[in-house]
């Protein structure tokens, strides 16, 4: 698109030049109103600006692989930032090559902890007594799974998550990889993101008494969030009630985001694991500290960034599939915006969703990349044989088949499908994605945005220059017309004078004859 606009500009500029050249004599004639020297400069600038998009054509991506014009733009940005990219590759190989999945996980986990630290310093630590009570509560629920839980280990984790994670990061990463026991999940998630905040819970209660401008939009989507999950099907049940409360409170807490479709799915997953006021606090943490908020802000800046990072990962880790997608016109945003916005909770089986969330909460939203790449890797062969629409269909409905197994329905779980979740999680960890790569791609993206902005600014200034030139041309044309009129008048006068002259002469001749 950008290239098009520029092409249009370039065909316009010669006209400008022509107009100017044509007008030159007049301009010199009418020195008092002659233009400022800027005219020449602008036209020189014009030629220089056109170089920016043109260089895109010289990128090393063959034309036939970029059926969608926008790609041109992106490669243009990439060219400028080759440096950090290759650097990232080096590191990626180093770190990924010899490390076990858990070590890789620990790396992300520690990075997340670092991020969390500032906050835990400022907040009153949750008393271990509280946590102990929570634990005992879970232990006494008689949950079938409770008997298989390693209480000593998880007890220690829950008691002081931040310290434990710092001291035993690899051990913890391995445990998270294996899955947080579901009765403890809500509790641990809250510990992971350090969400417990009595003041915020109070604020939540306050919000519930207020009214939000988004209430109708929220209400409309309530019955449409997990419509097949027993907890949310009843229009007047606790599930939809809590969903409505948390969404309304959040829309008041963060007016800039307000309400956005996709958000209810995130909240629903939280509500399936904890009470509403706690879900609200975790949501606030996810949004602000994990930067999920940038997925839902106007223009969705973080979603755009993460889709860019994902594209680069795809290019780096699955180059053949990447090219196949390009050839078929499949853009990753066509499928991953849904995955990323809802953190995979949109129409995905919950056992898988929970395990992905375990990792997102432990290591950051970036965990989504490992899962996305692992899925494509696992299905690469199948995808390579498909065409555009088949690819999209596959991604929508068959992408999880490789981790799905038929099984006998049991009494407590009547579903006939089970999921190889452990395998999926292991595969995600094996994807060799490092924080370093992601940082490098983020820098590339920032450069790209900057280049885009600069380009837009240039286009703007060109447009302005064009406008002032047009105005000038108009003014000069007016002057020319004015001069023409004056010229006509003078000529007319001259003719009249001549006629008078001739008349006088004839008269003179007549007098002489007389």
């Amino acid at each position, binding site marked *: 698109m950008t290239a098009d606009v520029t092409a249009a500009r370039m065909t316009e500029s010669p006209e400008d030049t022509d107009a100017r050249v044509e007008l030159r004599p007049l301009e010199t004639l009418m020195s008092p109103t002659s233009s400022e020297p800027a005219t020449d400069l602008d036209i020189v600038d014009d030629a220089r600006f056109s170089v920016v998009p043109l260089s895109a054509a010289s990128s090393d991506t063959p034309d036939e692989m970029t059926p969608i014009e*926008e790609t041109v733009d992106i490669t243009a940005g990439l060219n400028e930032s080759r440096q950090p990219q290759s650097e990232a590759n080096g590191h990626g190989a180093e770190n990924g090559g010899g490390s076990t999945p858990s070590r890789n996980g620990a790396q992300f986990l520690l990075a997340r902890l670092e991020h969390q630290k500032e906050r835990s310093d400022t907040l009153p630590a949750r008393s271990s007594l509280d946590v102990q009570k929570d634990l005992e509560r879970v232990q006494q629920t008689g949950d079938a799974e409770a008997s298989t839980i390693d209480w000593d280990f998880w007890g220690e984790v829950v008691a002081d998550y931040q310290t434990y994670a710092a001291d035993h990061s690899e051990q913890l990463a391995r445990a998270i990889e294996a899955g947080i026991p579901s009765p403890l999940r809500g509790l641990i998630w809250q510990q992971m993101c350090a969400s417990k905040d009595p003041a915020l819970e109070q604020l939540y209660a306050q919000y519930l008494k207020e009214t939000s401008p988004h209430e109708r939009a929220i209400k409309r989507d309530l019955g449409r969030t997990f419509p097949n999950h027993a907890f949310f099907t009843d229009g007047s049940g606790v599930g939809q009630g809590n969903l409505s409360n948390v969404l309304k409170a959040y829309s008041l807490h963060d007016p800039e985001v307000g309400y956005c479709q996709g958000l209810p799915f995130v909240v629903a997953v939280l509500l399936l694991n904890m009470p509403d006021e706690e879900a609200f606090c975790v949501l606030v943490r996810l949004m602000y500290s994990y930067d999920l908020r940038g997925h839902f802000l106007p223009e*969705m800046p973080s979603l755009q960034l993460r889709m860019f990072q994902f594209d680069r990962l795809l290019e780096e880790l699955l180059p053949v599939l990447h090219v196949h997608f390009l050839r078929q016109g499949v853009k990753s945003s066509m499928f991953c915006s849904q995955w990323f916005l809802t953190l995979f909770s949109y129409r995905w089986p919950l056992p898988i969703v929970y395990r992905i969330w375990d990792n997102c909460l432990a290591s950051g939203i970036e965990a989504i990349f490992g899962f996305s790449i692992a899925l494509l890797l696992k299905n690469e062969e199948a995808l390579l044989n498909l065409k555009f629409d088949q690819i999209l269909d596959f991604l929508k409905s068959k992408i999880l088949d490789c981790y799905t197994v038929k099984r006998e329905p049991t009494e407590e779980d009547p579903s006939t499908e089970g999921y190889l979740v452990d395998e999926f999680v292991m595969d995600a960890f094996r994807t060799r994605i490092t924080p370093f790569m992601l940082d490098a791609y983020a820098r590339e993206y920032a450069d790209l945005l900057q280049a885009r902005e600069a380009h837009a600014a240039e286009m703007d200034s060109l447009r302005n220059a064009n406008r002032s030139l047009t105005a000038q041309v108009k003014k000069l044309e007016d002057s020319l017309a004015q001069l023409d009129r004056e010229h006509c008048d003078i000529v007319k006068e001259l003719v009249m004078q001549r006629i008078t002259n001739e008349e006088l002469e004839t008269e003179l001749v007549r007098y002489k004859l007389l």
Partner: protein
Amino acid sequence: MADAAASADKSIQVKLVLLGEAAVGKSSVVLRFVSNEFQANKEPTIGAAFLTQKCRLEDRVLRYEIWDTAGQERFHSLAPMYYRNAQAAVVVYDVTKAASLDKAKSWVKELQRQANPHIVIALAGNKVDLVNNAAASSSSTTEETSEDEPDDATATPAELAQAASGDGLRAVARDEAQAYATEAGLLFFETSAKTGEGIVELFTEIAKKIPIEHILASTRGGGANRPGGAASGSNAQGNVNLDANNQTPKNACNC
């Protein structure tokens, strides 16, 4: 016939995109068209959804490749990707919500400025079932229409009040929308995804208006040298089939 017209499965691909404000019923319209059903509690569209549907039109098989986009203003930045290569667009508004027609108009403007210049655009006033029987049973429809409300914080209190009081009543006159559509060069239909009214007609008329020869020429390199007779022949047959479609609209697109 191994005609240049036929792709591997002998159908002509038509890329179609649905645009319009959130909750006007875009996804429901597509679902009605693709599987002839209506689900009141379907998940809202996140990002965009891709669906396909084959239809027979005269002697041709068309295959609609449909992008159903998310309507909330926030998803706007994702939309150009979906309409950029589209040959047809359905811009949907909700006949019970006046503001949704304004949004539809701005989509039409954007399409006319940014999309493929040959794009066929249809305007669809959806949820017409709510106003057809509004007089008879306005109380029963009140709940349904309470979907009118702002999606973003941009709504004014006045709009809120209007939405709250306008339940169950037609907010966009058929003539007004028709006049606008004619002026802007759009196909126009009032539809109901709920009852199925107007849906098949909508997609059938689009199929007829699509410059098929143009698509063939652009999708297959050698397609340009097709005999010119094909175009005039299809026009002659068009009238015949139009009648047939009107008699049995449900069967027009059920391959």
